[in-house]
Every structure is written in C-alpha cells, then in structure tokens.
C-alpha cells in the first residue's frame, strides 16, 4: 500500500483505502468525521462527471470539425454561402462566438450534426494551431487572435451583400 512513501503519503493512502473499502453507511460516517457533507459531495461529484463528459464531447467534436476533408469543407461552405477560408477559421476557433449570428450558428450546427450548444462550446475552445504555423518558416508565426465573425467574412473578401445576408439575425 505504501512502500517508500513519506508519512503524509502513507496517511493519505490509508484514508483512500478506508474510503474505498467502506460500505455506504460507513462512508457517510467517515465523511462527516472529515467535515464533508455526504450529499453535497455526491452532488458535486456528479457535476464533475457530467462536466468531464461534456469536455470529452467538445474535444471529439472539435477534432471532427478540424478534420473535415477538403471536399466536405467545400460542400458545407457551399451550403452556408461562405468561403472555405471562413470555415477553416471557424474550425481553428478564431471567431468570437458571441459575434456569430444565432441564425448562422444554427445552420452550421445542422450541417455538422451538432446542437447549437455543443457547437458553441467547440468554437469557444482555445484557438487551434494554424496550418501555416505547423510548417517551418523563416519568420516566426504571429499569435492567432479571435476576431468578430464579420471581420472573418471581410478578410475572406466576401461581398457586402453576402456579408449582410450572413449577419442577418432573423430567418
């Protein structure tokens, strides 16, 4: 249980063994003795498990979005009326999520088979490394920053008409 450990490590390991071996009734007694509310601990732990599953889902969806094939990217971009570079920027999480019109977010979620909530979490994840930054270059890559969605559209040289249509909130 505790070879070569400090006294405090042995102490912690003994308590861990005690809790893991305890029956439900004993466990609650130990928790109360340790100054912990058994019901509160259970509730908070369940929230932790749910949070971990959400994080996993987001990580998986983020990977799926960044791994879209070029053909599929073209298809999705075509359906949404945006250039492929805009979709790539979204896949790299370079848009400020709150600046994306709900209507566009809903359409993108439908295209990708996600819920709006999951997609929002995916797009809010830390900025992914850009493809240019993954290659050797003579100049150091610039730190990518999040920009408003409308700026992404402008940087992709989309027309004012197209931008106005994409930024429209109502359906």
């Amino acid at each position, binding site marked *: 249980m505790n070879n070569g450990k400090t006294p405090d490590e042995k102490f912690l390991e003994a308590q861990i063994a005690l809790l893991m071996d305890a029956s439900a009734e004993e466990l609650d007694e130990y928790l109360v003795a340790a100054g912990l509310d058994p019901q509160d601990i259970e509730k*908070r732990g369940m929230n932790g498990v749910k949070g971990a599953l959400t994080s996993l889902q987001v990580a998986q969806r983020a990977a799926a979005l960044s791994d879209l094939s070029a053909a599929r990217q073209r298809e999705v971009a075509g359906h949404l009326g945006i250039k492929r570079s805009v979709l790539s920027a979204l896949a790299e999480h370079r848009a400020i999520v709150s600046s994306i019109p709900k209507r566009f977010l809903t359409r993108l979620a439908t295209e990708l088979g996600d819920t709006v909530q999951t997609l929002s979490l995916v797009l809010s994840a830390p900025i992914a490394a850009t493809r240019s930054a993954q290659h050797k270059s003579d100049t150091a890559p610039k730190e990518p920053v999040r920009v408003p969605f409308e700026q992404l559209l402008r940087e992709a040289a989309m027309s004012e008409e197209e931008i106005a249509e994409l930024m429209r909130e109502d359906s």
Partner: protein
Amino acid sequence: MDKENPDDENVPDLGDVEPEPNDPGGVLASLAEIELEIKALLRDPARVKKLTAIAALVLRTKPKLQRQYEPEDLLQDALTRLGIGKRSWAKNRIDFNQAVIGVMRSWADNLEKQKKRKDVPLVLESELPSVGEDGEPPKLEELAGHSDGPPEELAAKEDDAQGMAQLACVRANYGPDELPGRILDKLKETSFETLLELRLAVGADEAEFRNAWKHIMRTAAKLAPKE
C-alpha cells in the same frame, strides 16, 4: 478555457505536460473504453461520492491549490485527462478507480508545484549585498550556495517538510497509548499492503479501528492547512 471569459484565468490548462509513469508491460485502455467507464460513473453515485471525497482529501494536502480548486474540479480534470488521452490507464494493472485516483494525485501535485513556483519571490541582483563581511564583493560560488537557492530547491524543501507535517500534527493530538496515536505510529514506521494488516498490527477489533479512524479524520479536518 475560453480565453474570452476572464473567469477562466485561474483554470488550469488541461494540455499541460505531466510525467506519465513508465509502464512497458501495461495494456492501455482505448479512449472509447475510458469514455464508457466515465459514463458508468453516472449510474454509480456511491462510487462518485467516494472519488469526490478522495479528491477533497487530496486537496487538503495542497494548501495553495485548494484556494481556487474544488474537489469536483479535480475529479472532472482527472476524468477529462484520461478521456482525451493526456493520461493513460493500464487496465491490466489497476482498476479504473485507481487510475482516476492516481491522476487526481499527480495532477494536483503538478498544479501545486506550478503555483509554488509562481509564488516564489524573485531576488533582484540590486537587492543582493554588494560587499561581503570582508569588504570584498561576494564570490559567485557563495551566492550559488546561498540558502535561498533556486525556486525549485525551495519548493523541494517545502515539499519535504510538508510530507512529514500532516501526520505529525495529527499524531501530536494523542497520547502514546491511545489507539488513534498507535495507528499513526504504525503507519509511519511500517509499510502495509492492506488496512487489515495495519489493524492486526495495532491489535484492534474492527469497530475500534473504524472509530479510531473517524477520530483521526476529525482531527485532520480541524488541522487541515488553510491559506
């Protein structure tokens, strides 16, 4: 971890590197198997309660971390790190509970060390004495041997002291013949494979042993370091 949210400044980056124990014979679980195990926890609140309580005990040994990190955060991060493959689970060696507990302990250790390093004040060159006792400028080797060494050295010394502190403080609350004190003495002196061995070594029956541990946990909770 959304950088748009200022509340996330104190949230640890799950991408941080953490040394993985080298286990050449380990049969590693796939990410799908780990996800199934995490989902199984949703149907097993008793197990979640145990793991969260253990997270709380682990955090009590990390005074800096526990100011901004809750037991459920530690459990969530450990599960996430396993689920995204930042940490592995050698399923032929240990069960999933042990894997989660192991990750919670090492991740908490890692974060506490990071926080200690950030908190160690820097000594500017201008703050060092310009002349020694002999009126000569201090020699480089003397500065290098100064007791306020590099932050890592300081943190290691603190760790050594802390590794002894909790058990000793709890032990000081009991007389030499009191059962909780004898349990702690045995625990300190010897290595046990199981709690049963420890119980037999102190010659206590099951009920006495359980009650003594409740007493110990009550004392430890009162003495838990707070920052």
